[in-house]
């Protein structure tokens, strides 16, 4: 099934029911270190990714570390 969500600030229609599926759908290996996810302003811990269900309109942030000062 497909959902319309706000993903990293942009409205996107995704084919994913859970965080894990979303990451895979967006080409991010869920096993990869350094990734973190927040849904509606709350962090979704890595261990909950497989079962954490995304709802329509969810505000999702997927982040990783970058060069910084």
């Amino acid at each position, binding site marked *: 099934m497909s959902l319309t969500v706000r993903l990293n600030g942009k409205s996107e229609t995704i084919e994913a029911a859970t965080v894990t599926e979303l990451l895979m759908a967006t080409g*991010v290996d869920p096993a990869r*270190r*350094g990734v*973190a*996810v927040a849904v509606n302003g709350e962090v979704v811990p890595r261990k909950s990714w497989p079962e954490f269900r995304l709802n329509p309109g969810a505000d999702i942030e997927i*982040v*990783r*570390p970058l060069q*910084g*000062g």
Partner: protein
Amino acid sequence: MSDRLVTAGLPLRSRLLVGSAGYPNQQVMLDSIAASGAEVVTVAIRRISLQGYSESLIDVLGSDIRLLPNTAGCSTARDAVLTAKLARDALETSWIKLEVIGDRESLYPDVEEMLKAAAELVTDGFIVLPYCNDDPVTCRKLADLGCATVMPLGAPIGSGQGIRNPGAIETICARSSVPVILDAGVGTASDAAFAMELGCAGVLLNTAIAKSRSPVVMAAAMRAAVDAGYGARKAGRIPKRDYAEPSSPQMGLIGS
């Protein structure tokens, strides 16, 4: 051991902390970090670009480097706190360099939002290292809230102006109950040495190395400068005198 910078109970290998941004390329960054001797390296937390992503910093920076994520660019306590929590989950560290910016031109902190974020993060178990004003009152409040260090600015971020208000930094160091790390403003080696002579426990810098003509050479220079300033502080410098004082003996001059 007593010569190590101890942060939140952890003795660090070096009193120099460096950033990972703005280097000509990744190899120069790695060589510069190695030359700096720094154990702690700051990183930013940013949205993943949705078309997959390049090699991760975590992998390229060895395991002997302690990553210190920052909340750079956040202008509200809310964004800073969420960024800190994402960083904790992404990097499995509770250390956070707290930045809450009040103004895009000066990049000075927003004192109210910073204090709010610091309180919330400390309560949530974070080791908070806040980038803050060179203001003894705000620094004391941050320490009282439970921050692990205070990191007053020497000058605007990236300006390379050095320490614009040494008296304020000295006052902060003289009274602080937590280590004072000079953050922002260092432009060259003597600035870093001077910070240590004022009583700072460490120096955090990025642009001064990354944007210099030869980052690796500058990284080694900064390492030496922090050692030099720390040593000079420990050694106890001579007082400044208004007039001259001969070093050679005054007696036994010929022709006298």
